[in-house]
């Protein structure tokens, strides 16, 4: 190639000249002037050659102007604008109070006055920032008197009325410079809601506000902040944004790690679930080459096999903040991420505070803060934990010394209920002695309402409207104050245990899951990861336990101990929809509506009456027998027959106290199950006893076998004998009563026989 080399500087020189030439006109000129085209030998090409191609007249004119038009590849400006990346996004709020229901990324806050806590990840900045809250309030809310007050790290940002009724609306709150710190920040939203028509506890149930978590949080401007996002804190912000609304976080290239992939998968799922509060994170494992999701990705993790391991953060081609893990063979994941402080266990990992028996424990020491109630209805649940070997089955009493005060002249029917694990132990009428502090008010309750592990102390306040048919008066004055100086005394217990899945459930960890050949029929790989994510939320502080994931086809693998659980009933519990009132006749209803009932009764023969009487006697006998020898599985099956839910947990074999078996319904949502698991492990109220059904509304219904036998975990001694023996006898009181009675009778017979025999005249 000689010619170009001889004129290397021609190009720039001519370019300057050529810029003034209207390219399209010339191109058009070329296009319509085929005579300018040349043949191979340099001669002019005449159109008959084209005719030789078989074209009709007027066809086949080479039109290079179209082909060479530089605009032909260019999308219109309007279309291009549509594809432009968003200018801003939000570092989304992470709801730390798991007891509020969350659905599709929206948290529903019900009641007159609630304080809702969130985490938000941020980068410290010396300029003002904006926190936006997206809400929609129920139609019963009176906007003029319903409002939210937002604070960040204890500093109030402002108050807005809850005016968004018909559709989700966004309120902005300015965050002064210096308030936000890099990393986790605490956001609290106080919601005050008032009914527009009624007043009272019933009206309080109708008050709600939804907070759209995916659209609420710290506003991040792409233009100004993109450079600062390439670090761990920026990644955590993006991770919060990505995972809001239950969206999955992509992990790319995990398969490239070959046999080490499983180790890394479990580590990443566990680590980031422990690092980020709120709903469990959901992960999606993809290859490197993917299609764009419906909504823009904010964060992901990309794994690259490398010779040397390192972690870095980049803004990827789609704008997502990416944690890039370059992984050499045999790298310890823990070691690689050890230098990154934020990817560490956070506060939400803590189990409920532990209370020691035989001492007055102030409420403040297990997280109950002093609170003024000004609402008509309130429910507060506070989880605490008792030692794993604490057990009281006797009538021993626990005692609360309650420090509280309530307003004078409260409406009739005002009351405060104290609850232990959902059972009301005391009703305190809020009448008569109002206006003055009441200190150390003793409330005794049966300690057997508590159990080892997580328990829940609850306060439920009712203040009727006065009148209930008008909106409540605008009055923020407190009607009740409960002080954190109140105490709880838990009685002594010898070191004992009783078969119960509660402890095994609390000890579950991501490593606890066990699969068999048939597990895949009921649990996808993603289901398992979702469950692992939930279990990663709290670390096992006690002995490790096992969760067997079983399918409906594998019910035979569940060890049932001496309980004869009916397989069909087990299947029905997760297969059948919950019964509705319309389809289930209420007891006695048929009699009321049956005009022929009286005639039938009259015609009933004496033999039938006798038969019915005999049945009643037999039923009574069975009832007695079951209490004396309660090993029959009939009670379990009767209970199972009434249960409907999305998952069932079993621990029927008392010889395997560290293992739980889980059966899920085919149409169940693993995210809902995982959320219920995570919530129960933090807030209590989780699985107990031998069989537990997770209902479709997220509650745990448990069956406790009547023949559970407590075991003493320490040597018998004079100090523990009474309490331990009391527990053992209390577990099966009728059995032991009859046993003792039997022994007494036998002893009496023997004694009588002895007396008689010694007095017999011997010849």
């Amino acid at each position: 190639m000689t010619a170009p080399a001889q004129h290397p500087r021609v190009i720039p020189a001519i370019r300057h000249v050529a810029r003034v030439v209207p390219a399209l006109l010339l191109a058009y000129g070329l296009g319509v002037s085929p005579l300018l085209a040349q043949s191979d030998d340099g001669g002019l090409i005449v159109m008959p050659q084209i005719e030789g191609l078989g074209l009709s007249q007027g066809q086949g004119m080479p039109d290079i102007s179209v082909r060479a038009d530089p605009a032909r590849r260019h999308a219109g400006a309007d279309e291009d604008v549509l594809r432009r990346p968003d200018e801003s996004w939000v570092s989304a709020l992470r709801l730390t109070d798991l007891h509020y229901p969350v659905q599709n990324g929206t948290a529903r806050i019900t009641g007159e006055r609630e304080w809702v806590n969130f985490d938000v990840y941020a980068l410290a900045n010396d300029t003002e920032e904006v926190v936006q809250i997206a809400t929609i309030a129920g139609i019963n809310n009176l906007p003029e008197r319903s409002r939210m007050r937002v604070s960040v790290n204890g500093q109030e940002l402002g108050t807005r009325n809850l005016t968004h009724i018909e559709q989700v609306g966004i309120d902005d709150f300015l965050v002064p410079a210096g308030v936000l710190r890099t990393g986790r920040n605490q956001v609290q939203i106080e919601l005050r809601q008032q009914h527009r028509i009624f007043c009272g506890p019933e009206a309080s149930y109708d008050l709600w506000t939804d907070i759209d978590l995916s659209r609420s949080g710290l506003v991040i401007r792409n233009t100004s902040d993109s450079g600062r996002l390439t670090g761990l804190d920026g990644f955590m912000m993006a991770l919060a944004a990505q995972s809001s609304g239950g969206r999955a976080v992509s992990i790319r290239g995990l398969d490239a790690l070959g046999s080490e992939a499983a180790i890394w998968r479990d580590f990443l799922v566990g680590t980031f679930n422990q690092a980020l509060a709120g709903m469990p994170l959901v992960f999606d494992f993809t290859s490197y080459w993917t299609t764009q999701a419906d909504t823009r990705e904010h964060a992901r993790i990309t794994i690259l096999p490398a010779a040397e391991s390192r972690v870095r953060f980049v803004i990827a081609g789609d704008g997502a903040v990416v944690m890039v893990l370059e992984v050499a063979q045999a790298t310890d994941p823990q070691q690689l991420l050890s230098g990154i402080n934020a990817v560490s266990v956070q506060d939400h990992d803590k189990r409920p505070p532990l209370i020691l028996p035989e001492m007055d424990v102030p409420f403040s020491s297990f997280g109950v803060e002093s609170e003024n109630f000004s609402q008509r209805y309130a429910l507060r649940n506070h989880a605490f934990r008792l030692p794993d070997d604490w057990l009281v089955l006797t009538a021993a009493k626990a005692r609360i010394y309650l420090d509280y005060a309530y307003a004078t002249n409260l409406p009739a029917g005002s009351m405060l209920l104290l609850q232990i694990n959902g059972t009301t132990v005391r009703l305190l009428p809020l009448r008569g002695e109002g206006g003055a502090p009441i200190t150390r008010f003793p409330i005794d309750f049966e300690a057997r309402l508590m159990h080892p592990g997580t328990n829940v102390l609850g306060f439920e306040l009712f203040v009727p409207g006065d009148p209930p048919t008008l909106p409540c008066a605008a009055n923020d004055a407190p009607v009740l104050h409960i002080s954190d100086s109140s105490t709880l005394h838990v009685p002594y217990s010898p070191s004992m245990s009783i078969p119960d899945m509660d402890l095994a459930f609390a000890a579950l960890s991501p490593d606890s899951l066990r699969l068999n050949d048939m597990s895949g029929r009921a649990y996808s790989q993603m289901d398992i990861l979702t469950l692992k994510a939930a279990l990663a939320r709290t670390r096992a502080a006690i002995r490790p336990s096992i969760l067997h994931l079983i399918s409906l086809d594998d019910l035979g693998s569940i060890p049932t101990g001496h309980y004869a659980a009916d397989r069909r009933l087990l299947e029905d519990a997760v297969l059948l929809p919950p019964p509705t009132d319309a389809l289930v006749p209420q007891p006695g209803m048929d009699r009321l509506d049956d005009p022929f009932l009286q005639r039938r009764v009259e015609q009933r023969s004496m033999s039938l009456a006798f038969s019915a009487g005999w049945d009643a006697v037999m039923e009574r006998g069975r009832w007695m027998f079951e209490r004396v020898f309660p090993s029959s599985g009939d009670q379990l099956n009767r209970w199972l027959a009434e249960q409907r839910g999305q998952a069932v947990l079993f621990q029927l074999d008392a010889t395997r106290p560290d293992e739980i078996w889980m059966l899920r319904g085919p149409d169940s949502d693993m995210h809902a199950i995982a959320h219920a698991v995570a919530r129960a492990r933090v807030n209590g109220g989780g699985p107990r006893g031998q069989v537990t059904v997770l209902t479709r509304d997220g509650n745990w219904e448990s069956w406790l076998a009547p023949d559970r036998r407590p075991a003493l975990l320490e040597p018998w001694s004079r100090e523990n004998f009474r309490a331990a023996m009391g527990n053992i006898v209390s577990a099966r009181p009728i059995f032991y009563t009859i046993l003792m009675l039997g022994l007494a009778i036998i002893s009496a017979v023997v004694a009588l026989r002895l007396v008689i025999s010694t007095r017999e005249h011997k010849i």
Partner: protein
Amino acid sequence: MNRRRFLASGATFGAALAAGHAPALGQARIAQQARPVWDSWMAAYLRSDGRVVDTLQQEASHSEGQGYGMLAATMFEDEAAFRLMYRWTEQQLALRPDALLAWRWLPGQANAVPDRNNASDGDLFYAWALVRAAARFNDRSYLTRAAEIAQALASSCIVPMPGASDKLVFLPAAFGFRHDTHMSVNPSYYMPLAMRDVAAATGVSALAACAQHGEVLLEEIARDGLVPDWVDISERGVTVSEALSQNAGYEAMRVPLFLIWSRLQQHMAVRRMASVYERSLQPGREAPTVVEPLSGVVLETSADPGYQALAGLVVCSAGQGLGALIPPFSADQPYYPATLQLFTMFAATETMPECVPL
């Protein structure tokens, strides 16, 4: 991190290398793992009759698009889609007495092919797709057709370079680009790998020679700046086009892509473009699409992921790190950038497996 170590480290993971990091095996892997990408592309741009639609250009179809689509079908081992596109192309665009294809098909018109001129890049990719299909789908009839096209290209579109008769030039078409004083040449029509593969499979050595001369030509052009969309070649040498686009725009952006695909990552044309992208490309923002060749000033940008993907690969080819700023594939963009995004994936998979999207 030395990128050569990517493969080495991939080898240490054993199965991982066999699974996807060796270029030879990468295609099989991509056919499986990136199948959603292909499905998305087909759903957006491939009609049920086998016509590849350029949504931006009045729903027209081009021999280029048919060739691109058929090549992609071979990469994804989708014989059904390949046959569909092949049949439509043969029926609708193979209208010329020679073996070449008419360059454009217009829907909704009495005469769907008013211009029966060809487009040599479309013919080249069409032939390349047939060559690959012959091997992939074990059908030698494709090779016969490819040979016909290669012969026709050699006779109609490969001509001696003005002032250097021992060099060959790849004309954009059989007609219309040879003028009294010069030839109009589109540098992005050179795809050295395709030319060599077709030459090797069909025995038409002129294509291989043209590929070699084309690489030199591009090197000469890139010596002074970015490779523009069009150049004029005359007795005086290579100059910017007087009549056609002088910018490094939508046409020329394929030059570095095709060179990388042809394992010519160190080519001057690639380095030039990489320096511009490194300077101007912002992750997650719009990518440069039209650049002034000498100053490197960005004249136009686009938010289409395909252009960002291409730029990401070019930048990666010049860097030392692992991973590229390539966004996920999106069918929510015009046919052209979407197809370039497919090609970016092919090029990276075959030649730079370390340039996976981050």
